């Protein structure tokens, strides 16, 4: 019932700017693809779809988490007046970003077509990948939204943190370029790497490693346990903190 409300609310607001988002994203992808492709000496045919997928899905993850921090703070007016489950406000944030993602994903087939990559059946596997990604992002948002109502400046810390993760995760660079040895740990212990692989590998016509799946499923279970605990415990305090 409230999901419906979000559709109405978000789609209208983005009517003006929805495809601007797509356009901006295309320009960014094009520019970065050219610069870094040249810099890393990777053929553009390889690098452009790579960076396209990375940026589109990273934007989804990062803006979900960033905006997740302020989901309750932004809905203060509603929370203090209408009794609806607070979780709805978090869902609304992810929903909004899901719609933006939907707009951005449209770039992908164009890029694949441009570099002459035929679609494969493996690509369908990206769909459960995205869902699992969203499920993981959602618990992070839930925890952060609760904590950020209480400690407002955590929002800024999270922003910084995401910026660091952006460079630590192979998004702009390819994991193959990383020398062997202890450096690989940057990948193995980075949940965002595994989340990214779930979507990126199938889109490149490969199967994600089972380790990717295991990590992400495990992460979702552990994360949701903590998130539900935190939410259940502090849910009644949130209106007072606003």
């Amino acid at each position, binding site marked *: *019932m*409230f999901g*419906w*409300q979000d559709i*109405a*609310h978000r789609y*209208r*607001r983005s009517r*003006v700017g929805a495809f601007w988002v797509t356009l901006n994203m295309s320009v960014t992808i094009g520019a970065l693809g050219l610069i870094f492709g040249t810099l890393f000496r990777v053929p553009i045919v390889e690098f452009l779809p790579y960076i396209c997928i990375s940026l589109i899905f990273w934007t989804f993850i990062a803006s979900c988490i960033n905006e997740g921090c302020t989901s309750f703070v932004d809905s203060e*007016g*509603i*929370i*203090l*007046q*209408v*009794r*609806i489950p607070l979780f709805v406000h978090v869902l609304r944030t992810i929903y909004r970003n899901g719609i933006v993602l939907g707009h951005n994903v449209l770039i992908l087939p164009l890029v694949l077509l441009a570099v002459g990559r035929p679609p494969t059946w493996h690509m369908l596997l990206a769909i459960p990948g995205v869902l699992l990604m969203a499920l993981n992002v959602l618990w992070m948002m839930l925890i952060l939204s609760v904590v950020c109502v*209480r*400690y*407002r*400046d*955590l929002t800024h*810390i999270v922003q910084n943190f995401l910026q660091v993760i952006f460079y630590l995760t192979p998004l702009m660079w390819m994991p193959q370029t990383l020398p062997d040895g202890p450096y690989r740990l940057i990948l193995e212990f980075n949940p965002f790497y595994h989340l990214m692989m779930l979507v990126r590998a199938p889109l490149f016509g490969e199967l994600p490693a089972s380790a990717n799946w295991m990590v992400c499923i495990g992460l979702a279970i552990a994360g949701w346990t903590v998130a539900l605990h935190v939410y259940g415990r502090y849910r*009644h*305090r949130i*209106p*007072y*903190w606003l």
Partner: protein
Amino acid sequence: MASIRLSNVSVDFPVFNAVTRSLKNRLLSAATGGMIDRRWDGHVIVRGLQDVTLALEEGERLGLVGHNGAGKTTLLRVLSGIYYPTQGTSEIEGECVSLINMSLGIDPEATGRENIKLRGAIMGIPAEELCERIDEIAEFSGLGEFLDMPFRTYSSGMQLRLAFSTSTAIRPEILVLDEWLSTGDENFRERSNRRLQEIVNSTKILILASHSKDLLLANCSRIVWMEHGKVRMDGPAAEVAREYFGG
């Protein structure tokens, strides 16, 4: 069956100033030993309600009086289930709608018609019901062709008309009102009063906070007088009003 039962409800507000809201200070104060910080970290607790016990049955019309800061709004929020009591228990049965801010949820960029849907959704009117009633709401607002224009182009009077028309489309079991809502020019004011009266009459439990004696006496059978977060007096409307308004 709508009913509200509060027993020994207390509500504490933590008041954070800019200092305690920051995690940095939390960490720093923890590092300095944590004993002193209580005194200067500004973590003050304000008791908004203290030991309030209140039972409302179906059909009751409750008025709420008290000076500013006496805890009226806090009590309204507890009664509508937004604040969960820090101590004591509250049981609220029935669908509760508060008409405190009529313009909540309105998006200035959207057209009037879209805003009717938005506002309706925020108040929890199911989509199908809203679809059926949208024409009636539109007609009541008297905005005609303006309904297809963006909300921000309305005059403030027209904005209020739209907000009022939509807000009063609900028929909740429990209605929470902070002062009487009345808007618009002479003609609309009269119609809006009648409409609000209709809702007030049809709701199973009414809770009305007001500073107007006439209004309270006209609509309420019982009045609770709040002072410093406590119930100072609770009884039949006429009696409490006599005490509170002084004759």
